[in-house]
Structure formats: C-alpha cells, structure tokens
C-alpha cells in the first residue's frame, strides 16, 4: 500500500503544482478586477479553494474514520490522522485569507457571522482531534476515540456549507447553486483551476503525511524491538 502511495504521489504532486502555477498566473495576472471590489477580488482565488479544500479534508477524515471503525486498518487510521493535520492547515489558511479579504470589503477583520463562526468551530474540532491523538498513549484507543470524535464533528460540515442560505449573513451566498451561476466565466475559470490544484495538493500532502506517520510508527516499532533485545 505504501509502495502504491509512493507511485501515485509524484503524479498527484506534479498535477497539483501545474494547476496551482497556472491558476496563480490566471488569477494574479490575466483575470479582470471586480466591478464593486476592484483588484482585491484576487484574494478569492486563494480563499475559496482553501475553504473548499478544508471541507474536502474533513469529508476524507470522516470517511477514513468510519472505515477504520469498520475494518480496523491502521493505515486508514494514519490517513485519517494525516487528513486532520493537513485539513487544519487549510482551514487556518482559509480563515486568515478570509479575514484579510474582509478588511477592505466589510471594513472589519472579524464579525460574528454564521459562516465565520461555523468555520472556526471546524478548525477547533480539528485542533481537538489532533490534541486527542497527542494525549492518549495507547495507539488503538487513540485511533478509536479520534474516529468517534471525527464522525460526531461531521455534523458541522452541512452547517458551514448551508449557513449562508439558512441565516441572514454578511458572507456572500453560494456562487454556484441551483439558482445558477453568479460569477463571470473569466473569474470562474481561474477559480476552478485553483480549486482543482488545491484539492490535488491536499491529496498529495495526505499521501506524504500518511507515509510520515506510518514510517514513524515503523521506526518506533523497530527501535522498540531492538531495545527489547538488549540483554538486561
């Protein structure tokens, strides 16, 4: 399995780098400024893909957690652990870029808006998940408790996604919904390229981190075995 990860990670990483470089070029150099926001709309090409990737990361985390509780595969547990770590980085980046975008458009760095609050709760759940994994010593119990927390925390995802539809909010509504598109094609294309790039980057990072966690456990096991062989 690890060998297969190593085989695919190169392709995934290469495709992510290509998409991100093209997306950054389109977003920063060729795309037009917005009629009401001006040039500052370029933050969208980073903020929106980061936010979408955070939701993807949590979905992968919840799916891996369910899988782990069903099959007890330690490698799937490593993948869940990796998704949480990488997802926390993307969630934090989405919050920081969103805050920077809010200042020139809303004239504030932060507001108690349903979308912002539910997204911050998502970050807190991920931090809680990582802390739980760091605090419990027994590997099997740690994996089981963390999987349950991840599945319970999944309830926040629909709240994040639909918060702009369910409540009166300062955050803009969904640009792509059943009502149709509310974004021009010139902006949608770089946004889509960046979104694909960020998703591929997430999968690449999860592959690398899964290997990292697996190798750490392997090295610990090897060292432990070697120590147990030292004559007393």
């Amino acid at each position, binding site marked *: 399995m690890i060998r297969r990860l190593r085989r695919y990670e190169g392709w995934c990483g290469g495709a992510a780098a290509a998409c991100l470089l093209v997306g950054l070029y389109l977003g920063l150099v060729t795309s037009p400024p917005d009629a009401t926001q001006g040039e500052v709309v370029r933050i969208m090409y*980073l903020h929106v893909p980061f936010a979408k990737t955070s939701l993807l990361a949590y979905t992968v985390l919840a799916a891996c957690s369910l899988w782990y509780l069903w099959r007890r595969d330690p490698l799937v547990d490593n993948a869940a652990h990796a998704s949480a770590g990488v997802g926390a*980085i993307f969630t*934090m980046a989405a919050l*920081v870029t969103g805050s920077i975008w809010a200042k020139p458009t809303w004239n504030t760095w932060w507001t108690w808006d349903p979308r912002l609050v539910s997204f911050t709760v998502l970050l807190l759940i991920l931090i809680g998940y990582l802390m739980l994994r760091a605090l419990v010593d027994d590997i099997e119990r740690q994996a089981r408790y963390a999987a349950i927390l991840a599945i319970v925390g999944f309830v926040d995802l629909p709240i994040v996604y639909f918060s702009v539809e369910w409540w009166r909010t300062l955050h803009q509504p969904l640009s792509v919904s059943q009502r149709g598109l509310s974004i021009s094609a010139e902006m949608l294309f770089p946004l889509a390229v960046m979104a694909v790039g960020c998703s591929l980057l997430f999968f690449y990072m999860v592959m690398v981190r899964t290997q990292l966690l697996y190798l750490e456990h392997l*090295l610990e096991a*090897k060292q432990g075995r070697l120590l147990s062989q030292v004559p007393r």
Partner: protein
Amino acid sequence: MAWLYLRWVGIVTFGLLIAVLGLRRYETQVRPITPEDLVRHHQTDTVRVLGMVQAGSLTTDALAGRAAFRLVGEKDAVLVHYTGAPTEAIRELKTLVVVGRWSPLGGAVEAKEIALLPNYGFITAAYLLGLVPIGLFLFTMERRVRLLYNDIRQAKLYEPEEIGLD
C-alpha cells in the same frame, strides 16, 4: 535528498516568476500616482491618479454621462473631467482612482474610466500568509519522510538479531 531540494528550488523559482509578472502588471496597469506627482511631472500619457473627490466640487450631467470634480491629494488638487459610463463610484469625499490623460494647457485630467482602490497590500499579505505556511509545512514533511527512510534503512542493519530470536 538532492532531488528533493532541486524540486523545491524549481517550485520557488516558478512561484517567484509569477510574483514578478504580478508585480509588473501592478506597476504598469494598476499602480496610481498622487495629484502632487501629476502636477510636478506633467505626464502626458495615460495616468492613474489616486485622490479624494473634494466636497462641494462635484457637478454631474447624468444624461450626457459627464462629471466634473476636483481630486484632492495631500497638498494639491487637480480638476477632473470625466466622460464615460455612469458610475456610482463618483461621490463626494470618496477616494478613487481616475484613469485618463493630463492636459497641461487646460490643467485638468480628461478621464475615461474610474477605478477603485487597488488594495495590493491586502492581496500580497493574503497570498504570502496563505501559501508560505503551506509550502513550509509540505517541505518539512517531505524532508522528514526522506530522513525516516534513511533511518529505517540504517535500522535494518540489526535485523539478523531478530531472525536469531525466531
């Protein structure tokens, strides 16, 4: 390990290339000058002037799509004659960017376009704070994986003892 560093040098180089292109676009198409710069240098090509619409100076002819106002900087002010599509951006005490040609004889800017504040500081901050931590995180992880593979390869030297126990 050499391949890892080489790959990252490539990624950083491409990233810097895009940053330079973005910066060039900002310098040539976005960066505004102040009314003081305009009065001092008398540029005759198309200019972008950043200033505030002086209170009480705005006169508009909505039917003809014209507006005239004084654009104030820190010390100087220039007269602006705007002809073009009606825009909500032209309001008294509003800070905006006027795009047009400076006419030294008339002492006014003949503007064809009104743009909003570029806010490039926010864009730069968002891109740096968004991408650099992710890049550093990924680089650290990849480096650690390579080091772990090396450590495990070295740890294998002791495996014969393990076989002996079985």
